[in-house]
Structure formats: C-alpha cells, structure tokens
C-alpha cells in the first residue's frame, strides 16, 4: 500500500471507491500478534500468543472477559481494544440489569460494528485500529464473530487474526468441518495447535500462550498454565526433545534481527510501533 492523495482523512473516497484510512486501520490489525478463535456447537475457545515488549515487562493482555457468556480476543492497537472491551462489558451489564438475562452475542456484535462504522464516517474521528474476535452464547448456541475496523462483522466457525495468522488459518481450514461436533478437549487442543502454527518453529510453551473457553453451562474463564502445558505435552513430548536446541538457536537469531521492541509482528522489514501488540 502506497501513500496517495486520497488517504489523508477517513471521509475521503479514492477514485476507485476505497477508503484508505479504513484499510490502513485493518493493516494495524495485521501487525498485532496473533489471536485465534474456534467454536463447536456448545463451546468457544479463544487463544492468543503472549507478547511482551521486552524481557523486563509483563505480556500484554489480549483476551478479555465481557460477561459470563461472552469473551473477546483482540489484535492491533491494544488501547483501542481495551476501550472497546469496556464498551462491550458496559452494554452487556446494562442489558443484564434491565432484563435479568444475558445479552445475545449476535446483538452485541452489531452494536460494536455500528460503533466502528461511525468512526469511518466522521472527519474528526479515526477508525479503531483493532480487530476483535468475539465468542459468546445466545439462544441458538455458541457463536464466533470477527469485528473489523471497517465496521463489518462476520460469523466464523474458526478464524485467526494478527501477524502470521495465515499459518493458523491454513491449519484451521483443514480441520474446521469437524469443529461443530468437537468435544471441549479437542477444541482446546486444536486452538493450541493453531497457536503453534503462528509461532513458526519457536518451541510451544504454556507461558507463550493464553487460552480461554466458554460454553453452555461453562462461564468464560482462562485455562491455567498447568492445563495448557498438559495439552501441549500430549503432542509435543517427543518433538520437543529433538527440536529443543534448534528452537533456542532460532529464537535468539530473531531477537537480534528485530528493531528496538522485541515484537515478532510484521514481516520484519517494518518497524512495529510499541503500542501495537
């Protein structure tokens, strides 16, 4: 994407009918570290890669509980993501208070999309630079949606966003048809395997990923490190021992090559802003 005279503000159309600011916002999503979501008929799993600015800092929180029955994983500008999560929590709790009943996730997603659309049609605003994977329940079962900065949203069986998400998507594309009837455990396993795909060679450890689950009869919660490590062990046990040394060498090389923030986002030839995770 190259700079041109139609990309200065969001309310300027290009002659080919594009809003470049909106497209640039979607680029910001692609720069963030990966977030993955998948669903069965009764459960939704959201997983993400934990990224820290440096070894000294803690990792950025990318998955938020919105309500007992709704969770969201973000990729892109985390500040925008935090603000939108707060909005979602607010909508959800207001609905619960008035109706004593959980807000159907499909309706929350539309509110969110409408909010994002407003930012694409005001000259004094900018689009939100964050993509959201919203997983939740409503009367018809479990749902997974993707909300993007343009204000559109789509429903998915499984999806991945952020950097190197294509690797995860390829993995998910091969397997998604069976997800509907997956057991809870298989769904978690598939999510962690999809996360592994985005790491591209780096050893998969439970400290590198965050996994959350919600479902019918199971409120949203994060899986603890031990549980995640147990799942990893079921498929990494043999491979880990062989690849251990090779993996470490690779990780060191990448850290040296990256710019100031030790972020693995982007294709490596662009600086990644520290605010994007």
């Amino acid at each position, binding site marked *: 994407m190259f700079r041109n005279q139609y990309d200065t503000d969001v309310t300027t159309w290009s002659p080919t009918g594009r809003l470049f600011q909106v497209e640039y916002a979607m680029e910001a999503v692609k720069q963030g570290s990966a977030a993955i979501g998948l669903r069965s008929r009764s459960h939704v799993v959201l997983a993400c890669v934990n990224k820290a600015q440096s070894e000294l800092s803690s990792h950025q929180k990318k998955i938020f509980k919105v309500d007992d029955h709704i969770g969201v994983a973000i990729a892109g500008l985390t500040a925008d993501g935090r603000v939108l999560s707060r909005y979602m929590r607010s909508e959800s709790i207001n609905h619960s208070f008035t*109706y004593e009943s959980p807000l159907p996730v499909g309706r929350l997603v539309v509110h969110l999309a409408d909010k994002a659309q407003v930012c694409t049609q005001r000259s004094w605003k900018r689009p939100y630079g964050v993509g959201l994977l919203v997983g939740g329940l409503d009367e018809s079962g479990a749902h997974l949606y993707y909300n993007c900065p343009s204000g559109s949203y789509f429903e998915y069986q499984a999806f991945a966003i952020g950097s190197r998400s294509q690797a995860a998507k390829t993995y998910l594309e091969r397997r998604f048809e069976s997800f509907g009837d997956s057991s809870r455990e298989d769904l978690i396993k598939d999510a962690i395997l999809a996360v592994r795909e985005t790491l591209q060679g780096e050893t998969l450890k439970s400290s590198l990923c965050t996994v959350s689950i919600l479902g019918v009869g199971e409120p949203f919660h994060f899986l603890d490190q031990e549980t995640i490590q147990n799942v990893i062990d079921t498929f990494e046990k043999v491979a880990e021992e062989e690849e251990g040394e090779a993996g470490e060498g690779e990780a060191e090389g990448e850290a040296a090559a990256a710019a100031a923030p030790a972020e693995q986002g982007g294709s490596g030839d662009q600086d990644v802003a520290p605010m994007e995770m």
Partner: protein
Amino acid sequence: MTFTIPIDNGDALKNAEADSQRTLYPYVTGTSIVAIKYKDGVLMASDMGGSYGSTLRYKNIERMQAIGKHSLLGASGEISDFQEILRYLDELVLNDNMWDDGNSLGPKEVHNYLTRVMYNRRNKFNPLWNTLVLGGVKNGESYLGMVSMIGVSFEDNHVATGFGNHLARPILRDEWRADLSFEEGVKLLEKCMRVLLYRDRSAINKLQIAKITEEGVTVSQPYSLKTFWEFSAFHNPTAGAQGSW
C-alpha cells in the same frame, strides 16, 4: 389516546405548579387480577370493569394482553397507565422482532423490564398507578410474576392484585397444585372470581380467562358467573331495623 403538552415547570418537589405534571391519584381503575401456574403454562383471570371512583363506568375493558410470543400481561389500577405501558412494551417487542435473529424476549425479560420502568417512575414521584401481573412460557418453563406501582417485584406460583390478595390468595394457598389441568385451573380461578364478585364492590360479572402455553396466548370471550343471592337473610333485610333500608 390522550396527549399532554409538556410544560416544563421544573422540579415537582420544589415548584407547586409542577405537581400537575405528576401522578397524584388514579381516575379510571381496574380491579383484581388473579393468575396461577398450571400444568401446561399460566392461567389468568380478570373482569372487564373500569371504575370511575365508585361508579362502574366502563364495562368492556380488556385488562389482559399478549406481549410478544411468550408473555401475557394483566393490569389492575389506572387504565390509562396500563395503556401507556402497552405502548412501551409494543415498542420493546417491535425492536426485538426487528433483530430477526432467533432470539426473543421471554417472560422473565419482560417482567424485569417492567420492574425497572415501575421503579424508576416511583423514584421520580411520578408512578404508573398499576399492579401488573406477567405470566408466560418459554422453552417449556412457566413463569409468573408481579410488579407493583412502587416497583416491588417477585415471582410465585399464584399471584393476585388488589382485593385478590386478600380474598383469592387464601383459596389458592389451600387449593393450588403444580399439576392442575386446564379445567381444574379454570374452576379454581372461577371460584376466586366468584368470591371477588360477591365481596369487591368494583367487580362486575363479566370476566375473561386467558391461557398462555408454549403454543401461545388465548384470551376467552367474556362470560359471566352464576351467582346465588337467595339467602334467607337477604329476604326482607330490614326486618331487624324498622325504617332502615
């Protein structure tokens, strides 16, 4: 429908003229509603009277209405406020339908919405002068609840408003069972309504019984109950007090 042109006289608590903009007393009122859960859902009974003080002025008022697919609302108290509530609920149901997404408002949601409305109005010293009964069935589960004009809200297996609380509920406490059939339920309600007819001066002998089940709502045609007035004490009632009437 009546309209009021809003006049902003400010705070009703500080400015005397502002009083004319808030509810002080009811004018046209409906009397008791009695409702019970039964085997297949909920049964609700009400008469069709609208009193203007002590005058039985209106005799064809339907005080029960279906709300959406799953609920039935009955109201006692100020009829115009009931009509206002129906407009709010109409809008609520409309917006819910417009989503067209497979989700729909159940009786629990409607009951809680009404509780919020009634309580908020009470907090502004401008209540909707009604006691509402909300019954419904959704996904096989029956629901029956009540909201008063001050926002007191609860659920129970049988509820009644106004005089019904005093005359009907004792009967229901003794005779209600969870597995009542439709016929048994109607008989039980008619027993309550008959007592109310004899003893509540604002009751009239023209009632409707509404039924709500998983299939939907049906409100019966109006009918009247058989009454018996030939008690010997009613013959020559002034026998013991000459000159009285």
